[in-house]
């Protein structure tokens, strides 16, 4: 179980980005972290995975525990070794490596080379399209294929928890659906937990069991997905639905009156 306990993150000794964030991701659960641009979602993920340090950020207060062990002082390699894999925002593929090499490099920390082969097949089963493309240079793949590949690459490390950053970014809805159903499948079959950061709240809440909403460096709202979906604020701000559940017309946006009912 991943527990974030009141963490505070500061960039370059000056910029306070997270102001006391606490939440938890239970084993075997899919949680989602929602919020607008600049709310601090990605920073939260980086704080967990240890990538903050390479960007002059640090966790200045609070702690992050994973199965009872503190991980906020660890480097990214240590965190991955503990079983937490991160899929970075924007499909960071190793562009000069082939598809299969990309997947294999994801398993570089594992010693059981026999099972790696098996997991490779598992990823190919999950995304049959990738199998056809296994010898292609990954830099030339389409966005959807790249997103599937980086997700597969993270899975190759056999993680217990996957931190998934904006998987829907810039992708067609049908591919988003495909990716999220794969996430659901892995979650069911392999008991892998997920923490999904999304702006596409509707898609995320459809697969997630639990949701947290971030705004301005704080968790402002959380609850079961079903409850969040019904929450008026969520509907208003993240799904673009009006009071009656219909799509809002742009004419109404002009007369926008509603205020967020939380303190940012």
């Amino acid at each position: 179980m991943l527990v974030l306990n009141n963490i505070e993150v500061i960039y370059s000794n000056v910029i306070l980005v997270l102001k006391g964030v606490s939440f938890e991701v239970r084993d075997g659960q899919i949680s989602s972290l929602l919020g607008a641009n600049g709310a601090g979602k990605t920073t939260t993920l980086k704080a967990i995975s240890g990538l903050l340090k390479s960007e002059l950020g640090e966790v200045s207060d609070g702690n992050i525990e994973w199965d009872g062990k503190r991980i906020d002082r660890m480097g990214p390699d240590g965190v991955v070794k503990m079983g937490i894999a991160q899929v970075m925002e924007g499909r960071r593929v190793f562009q000069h490596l082939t598809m299969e090499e990309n997947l294999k490099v994801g398993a570089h920390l594992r010693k059981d080379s026999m099972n790696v082969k098996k997991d490779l097949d598992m990823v190919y089963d999950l995304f049959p399209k990738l199998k056809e493309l296994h010898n292609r240079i990954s830099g030339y793949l389409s966005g959807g294929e790249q997103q599937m590949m980086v997700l597969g690459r993270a899975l190759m490390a056999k993680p217990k928890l996957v931190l998934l950053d904006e998987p829907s970014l810039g992708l067609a809805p049908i591919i988003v659906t495909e990716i999220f159903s794969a996430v659901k499948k892995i979650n069911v079959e392999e008991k892998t937990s997920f923490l999904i950061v999304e702006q596409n709240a509707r898609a995320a809440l459809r697969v997630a069991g639990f949701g947290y909403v971030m705004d301005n460096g704080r968790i402002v709202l959380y609850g079961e997905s079903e409850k969040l979906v019904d929450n008026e604020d969520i509907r208003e701000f993240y799904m673009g639905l009006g009071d009656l559940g219909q799509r809002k017309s742009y004419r109404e946006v002009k007369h926008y009156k509603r205020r967020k009912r939380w303190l940012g």
Partner: protein
Amino acid sequence: MDTFLQLVVTGLAVGATYGLIALGFVLIYKASGVLNLAQGELMMFGAYICFVFSVQANIPFYAAVALTLPVALLIGAVIERFFLRYMIGQPLISVIMMTIGLMILMRGIATWIWGTEPKVYPQVFPQESMSIGSVNISYEYLWAAGLSIFFVLIYIIFFRFTKSGLVMRATSDDEHAALSIGISIKKVLSQSWAIAALTAAVGGIIIGALVGLDTTSFPQYGLKVLPVVLLGGLDSIPGAIIGGILIGLTENLVPEYLGFLGGGMEELAPYILVLIVLIVRPHGLFGLKRIERI
């Protein structure tokens, strides 16, 4: 025609040696994006360590070479750990300056330990030459060329088929993504410096066997190879060897056939060749094109 063939063969052999030295540059650039100007000094250290084993400790030459390699690996790792590690995230030019600082320091240490008098290995390669038709090619050059090609093959295999090689290539592609999948950049950097130092040591030993050792002129061979590296592409292993061969050929053929342009053209020709190639292909013949984003 005989002269032409002879010069081509010599050019190939010398070029392969250049290629081997260039490999050291490429390895470090691939892993860390650093152009290591102290490569000539790494070569010198390798060559002198082999000298210590083979002449001063009187160990048979091939055993001495075998003993030199682990020491070279260690030197590379130590340099990375104590000097280059602090340069992560600094501007490129500061990193270059760091390698220049290393260059000066290493020259100093070598001068201190071994002095400035020339030193000689015991005879390593047979002095006789092999004749193919009218072309004479010495065993020294054959060995040098053979070893260079051997090492290139080893590195190609290493980078293509081993896990460490894959990890190093991944790191050079995207450092942050590599971090995110748990690759320890520090480990990769120290590995690549160690391997580069080993390559440099082999290159140094070959050059030492060809022309002897001394602390004052030896480091120049490192800088002489710079056009080779940039011609082939800073991050291409086959590029290093092909660039080496091209420069080797240029150096040998130019004075014979373009000698009318004035003496010493063989020193200029590599630079002119590289300039022309770079204007057409800004990343060298085989270098990977970095996609520039805003």
